[in-house]
């Protein structure tokens, strides 16, 4: 590898360790931004009738604080560690798709910058609460562009998360070292696996909800402003994401805590198998408990009883997991180092957060608690106490591995003591403030809430300050820390068998395992890390295009132009095969037969299915509630729909033929089939365009009514997917003409074929729903 300059290295790296560091540092930056906002609004709440922020700034501060902390700080901090350590823990030399990984990072960074920059727009940033409740978040009540821009930032983040999800699932499924069976994976890797599985199903509904909201705000499409269930629809779509998101944030932190407790107890985790089953149960349950966020909206009592019971049930698996932590301590050889203190501290806070959550699962108690500071206290104990504190444990735990040097233990312990005490000063009073509404910028002296708020504010400022102790400690120890050596903690997972910091290629030989620790190595092909500027450029251009939407449309065009050129360049390097990583597969049960590109596309298809299911679900939800919804065939020309259906079905046939021909080496027919697919897909788009312009000329436009809005959004989103598929086919055509496919090499055709079939299947759902009934 040539020496590259500092800036070039960080802009173009695709090495998982570099990206891990980028993620970690960026997440800490957003943590500071979100924390500073909290420091500000805790000043506003310090005393009754304070005149410091005022309602507009206060509402922006709490909204951005929530969005940043949940989506841009805590979870990405876990992903920083995951990027660095998941490949090391499973014995791989990188993630499955290193360049895609860089893309995830840059999309994440720029989406965060987009969010933060929204405060500089006229009217300020979003001020509707991070839950974005409609109809408050619709343009009628919040016309300022900042609300839209923050929504676009969320969509951009969802794209980043989807790519990351694909990458981690394929990596953990396919790239484990010989002997690294599922049950031998360290808990942290399990935590990340659970998290990405949750993200895969939780983020598409969020993206769908935000897209519908954007359509509502920009085109006046009345999804959430509809009086027939619009407000409730937002609740469903948001909380279907929102509840699993809690476990997205918690699961890596909580399971990392277990690795740390096991290490510093000098023994293996007790009942690892049962913990994994338990967390798996909690992950599944988390999708069926979200209704508890809507107990008080007036939904059906039986539904609420059922959800109340399932919500209480979710406490049990977490109880099992906590119990095994205690059992691991029993007769252990406990060393109370800083990471161990933070880990154990996070369990204490998790107990309190979990117990107060049991109150909320009780519908009768939740009737009152919803919207009060009890809820604020509860979820901060979970996300900050159990989540962030365990991630701090992880930072201290892995600092020696990442830098090769020890941090200062004394200051680490001081940090723990100060932050643990101030944390409780900050959040415990909130439980006692269970009559105080959330998100109020001021309160009257006669409420009697002042003393508790003062304690909370003071605790909050100390807690924020204590973070600096860690930053200074880490910064100073970079130079003056004692050398750490390979395994300062006497831990037994694979990352501790290589030097600190790990060399560029991680492992000299791929480790082999016959128990949980390595006992040998195999030689393998040399792994080369590539550099690519394109992930950075693509993310930057999307950022510019989105900023342009809110300021000047010229910027949007510049952004789109750069985006187009960069994608073309990405294709070019792929066609020339300048960027390809080769890894030998060892342990891949049960995915032995599936190459990683194909597995990646299958994961993408799963995520896209959820996206369309959310859109279709929203359509059906609104349609059954809105009186006088006309039958589809009275509006749309059934014949055009039918012709398009036939065209798409035929194109599925031609792409299947293309695959069959390339497998048999009949290259002429292969190319012809690709062309046919491309032309059929193009024809579909053209007919769709004519159909739309025809409808529009009849006054059937997107903002007209719900009938038109749902039609245009669903078919428009589908058309966008057809276009993406066409880009893929075009890539195949170019590659075919370069002679890059033969009867042995056709993964690209297979992968894009899967995607194309998926897009066609979606149409088979849309056609009856929007043309027949």
């Amino acid at each position, binding site marked *: 590898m040539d020496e590259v300059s500092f800036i070039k290295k960080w802009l173009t790296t695709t090495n998982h360790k570099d990206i891990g560091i980028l993620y970690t540092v960026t997440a800490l930056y957003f943590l500071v931004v979100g924390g500073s906002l909290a420091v500000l609004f805790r000043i506003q709440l310090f005393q009754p009738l304070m005149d410091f922020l005022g*309602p507009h700034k206060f509402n922006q501060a709490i909204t951005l604080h929530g969005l940043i902390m949940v989506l841009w700080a805590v979870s990405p901090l876990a992903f920083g560690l995951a990027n660095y350590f998941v490949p090391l823990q499973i014995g791989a030399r990188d993630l499955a798709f290193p360049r895609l990984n860089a893309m995830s990072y840059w999309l994440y960074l720029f989406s965060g910058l987009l969010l933060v920059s929204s405060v500089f727009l006229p009217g300020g940033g979003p001020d509707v609460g991070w839950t974005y*409740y*409609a109809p408050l978040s619709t343009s009628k009540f919040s016309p300022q562009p900042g609300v839209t821009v923050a929504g676009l930032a969320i969509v951009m983040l969802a794209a980043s998360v989807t790519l990351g999800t694909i990458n981690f699932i394929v990596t953990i499924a396919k790239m484990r070292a010989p002997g690294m069976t599922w049950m031998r994976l360290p808990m942290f890797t399990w935590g990340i696996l659970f998290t990405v599985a949750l993200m895969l199903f939780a983020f598409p509904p969020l993206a769908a909800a935000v897209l519908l909201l954007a359509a509502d705000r920009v085109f006046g499409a009345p999804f959430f402003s509809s009086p027939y269930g619009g407000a409730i629809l937002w609740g469903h779509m948001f909380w279907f994401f929102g509840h699993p998101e809690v476990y997205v944030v918690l699961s890596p932190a909580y399971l990392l805590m277990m690795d740390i407790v096991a290490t510093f107890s000098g023994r293996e985790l007790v009942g690892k198998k049962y913990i994994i089953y338990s967390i798996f149960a909690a992950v599944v349950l988390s999708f069926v408990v979200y209704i508890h966020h809507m107990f008080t909206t007036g939904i059906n009592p039986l539904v609420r009883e059922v959800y109340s019971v399932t919500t209480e049930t979710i406490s049990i698996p977490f109880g099992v997991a906590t119990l095994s932590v205690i059992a691991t301590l029993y*007769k252990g050889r406990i060393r109370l180092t800083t990471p161990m203190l933070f880990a*154990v501290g996070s369990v204490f806070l998790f107990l309190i957060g979990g117990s107060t959550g049991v109150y909320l699962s*009780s519908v009768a108690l939740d009737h*009152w608690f919803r919207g009060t500071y009890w809820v604020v206290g509860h979820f901060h104990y979970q996300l900050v106490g159990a989540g962030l504190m365990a991630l701090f444990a992880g930072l201290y735990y892995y600092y020696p591995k990442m830098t090769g040097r020890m941090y200062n233990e004394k200051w680490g312990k001081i940090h723990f003591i100060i932050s643990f005490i101030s944390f409780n000063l900050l959040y415990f009073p909130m439980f006692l403030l269970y009559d105080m509404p959330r998100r109020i910028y001021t309160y009257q002296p006669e409420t009697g809430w002042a003393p508790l708020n003062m304690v909370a504010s003071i605790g909050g400022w100390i807690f924020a300050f204590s973070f600096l102790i860690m930053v200074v400690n880490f910064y100073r120890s970079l130079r003056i820390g004692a050398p750490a050596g390979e395994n300062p903690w006497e831990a037994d997972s694979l990352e501790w068998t290589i030097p600190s910091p790990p060399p560029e290629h991680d492992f000299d030989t791929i480790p082999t395992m016959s128990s949980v620790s390595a006992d040998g190595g195999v030689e393998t092909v040399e792994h080369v890390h590539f550099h690519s500027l394109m992930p950075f450029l693509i993310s930057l251009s999307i950022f510019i295009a989105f900023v342009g939407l809110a300021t000047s449309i010229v910027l949007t065009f510049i952004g789109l132009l750069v985006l187009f050129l960069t994608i073309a360049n990405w294709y070019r390097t792929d066609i020339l095969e300048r960027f390809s990583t080769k890894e030998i597969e060892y342990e891949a049960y049960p995915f032995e037969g599936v190459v990683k590109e194909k597995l990646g596309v299958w994961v993408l298809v799963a995520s896209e299915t959820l996206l369309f299911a959310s859109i279709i679900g929203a359509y059906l939800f609104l349609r059954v509630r809105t009186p006088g919804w006309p039958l589809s065939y009275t509006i749309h020309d059934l014949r055009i729909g039918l012709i398009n259906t036939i065209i798409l079905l035929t194109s599925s046939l031609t792409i299947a033929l293309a695959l069959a021909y390339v497998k048999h080496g009949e290259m002429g027919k292969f190319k012809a089939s690709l062309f046919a697919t491309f032309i059929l897909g193009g024809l579909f788009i053209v007919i769709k365009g004519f159909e739309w312009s025809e409808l529009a000329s009849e006054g059937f436009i997107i903002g007209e009514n719900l009938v038109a809005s749902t039609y245009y959004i669903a078919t428009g989103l589908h058309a966008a997917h057809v276009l993406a598929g066409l880009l893929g086919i075009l890539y195949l055509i170019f590659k075919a003409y370069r002679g890059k496919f033969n009867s042995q090499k056709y993964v690209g055709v297979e992968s894009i074929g899967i995607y194309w079939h998926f897009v066609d299947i979606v149409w088979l759902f849309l056609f009856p729903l929007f043309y027949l009934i």
Partner: protein
Amino acid sequence: MAPGPTADVWYSLFNLYTTAAVAINILIIIIFIYFLYKYRGYRADSSAGGIDAKKLAIVFVIVSAIIFYSLEFYTLNAMRFVEEVPENPDMVIEVDAFQWAWKFIYPNGTESLGTLKVPRGTLVLFKVTSLDVHHKFGIPALKASIDAVPGRINYLWVRFDEPGTYTVRCYELCGLGHANMMAQIIVT
């Protein structure tokens, strides 16, 4: 001297949950701290000796399921009591929430902005809706509240057993005036 039956039910359930939570948490934390202290630097055979994880997990699941589901039993009882819309309320009051105030409409059609007067001991049924965004109608002293959702009517019953002035607040972020969206209920 409780202000009303809804508060009674709520507080007795709250106290039950708190008793359970405090007892269980103290027990766990004591064990935790004891282990941390006892086995600090303990150098014995550190294999997973002596613990049958499977048995432990099964016992724990059964015990915690009994605790949680018995708590849930009380919850469901309380829920039915609080949520059952009374058939013959003494007074039906319509509540219109809007940015940023509460409008009360008496049975005879008279409207009142921000103040409601009811005689002590009356069984009041509120029919709550919103004219614009999502709000939440809450009376802290009675632990009674319900969402005010545009496009639908939600029901909430209360009985004021004590005379006095009761504050109504909004418990769902509804814009700039959320903090000051209050009303008074005067019970005579």
